[in-house]
């Protein structure tokens, strides 16, 4: 889901830089206001976790690869605004040091994976969990949160790819940037994330929630109404 340089037109990547910038600013302000120093190690570990889980490329035999992002579990454990910072730092380092995702696409990639995903995941978790304090319902909520969070992030990414042929064509009618239209990009990205990568994200999210619930339940942001 890391859009490389060249796939998005400036008409797309510039506004997405703007959108991410707005979220970065608010997130940093919230971090300054609300976060206690004792959570800093968890924030660092969350970012390290997101970096590492993204290295586990999952193959679709004979097809493409993809991976989990970890933004959903980070949003559940530390809150969605903290997840914005953790995952954005990861994506920016990936682009600059490891060439994973383009420099021009940092805004877009952060918007998709570090803004859309944590907020959707967090919201799904809150809605599905309802008032449950423990038990199966929490883990089902966590699974769906990871699964659908990644799926929706993938769909937004697919739309960004798919609108490129409409935005910019060369005089001979060839696309200038990402070449495939919405009708190709959306089903391709949706199916693989629906059936494979999203499921992995969901399982990882549920398992990690279970682990934290067992060992450090007080830490879990989404279970304490977010007040901290």
């Amino acid at each position, binding site marked *: 889901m890391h859009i490389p340089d060249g796939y998005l037109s400036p008409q797309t990547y510039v506004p997405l830089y703007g959108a991410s910038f707005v979220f970065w600013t608010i997130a940093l302000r919230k971090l300054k206001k609300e976060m206690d120093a*004792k959570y800093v190690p968890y924030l660092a570990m969350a970012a390290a976790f997101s970096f590492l889980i993204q290295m*586990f490329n999952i193959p679709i035999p004979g097809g493409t*690869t993809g991976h989990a992002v970890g933004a959903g579990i980070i949003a559940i454990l530390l809150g969605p605004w903290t997840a914005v910072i953790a995952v954005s730092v990861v994506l920016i380092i990936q682009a600059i040091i490891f*060439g994973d995702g383009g420099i021009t696409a940092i805004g877009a990639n952060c918007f998709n994976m570090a803004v859309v995903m944590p907020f959707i995941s967090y919201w799904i978790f809150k809605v599905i969990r309802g008032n449950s304090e423990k038990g199966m319902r929490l883990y089902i909520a966590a699974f769906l949160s990871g699964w659908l969070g990644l799926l929706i992030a993938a769909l937004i990414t697919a739309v960004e790819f798919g609108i490129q042929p409409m935005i910019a064509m060369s005089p001979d009618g060839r696309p200038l940037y*990402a070449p495939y239209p919405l009708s190709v990009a959306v089903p391709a990205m949706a199916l693989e994330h629906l059936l494979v990568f999203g499921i992995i994200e969901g399982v990882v999210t549920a398992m990690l929630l279970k682990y934290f619930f067992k*060992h450090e339940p007080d830490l879990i942001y989404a279970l304490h109404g977010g007040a901290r």
Partner: protein
Amino acid sequence: MTSFQKKLWIGLIIMALLSPLGIILPEKFKAGDAWGEWGTDTLEKLLGYVPEGLKKLADLWKAPIADYNLGSENSPLIIQVVSYVISGILGIAIVGSVIYLISNLLVKKS
């Protein structure tokens, strides 16, 4: 550091050591790039051309450890495996340091 935090850090190191699975498995199952993340060579094969605008931007930035690989694209798998583990450890160190740096500037001590 609490003992719980120590456990989590150990878990992260284990993840870094296992990360080469992320290149070995795709190789074994003959899976290619992620959708929409093809290089210009692959695009040329897929489309028969490379989109003009894409070509101009594609090589904008030369990452120091491109694709988490210290060798080249054609290096033997073992080089890529070792590079991956090093990238994983480096990744932990860099993102961790950046987070501590940001937090130091922002977060109040308790």
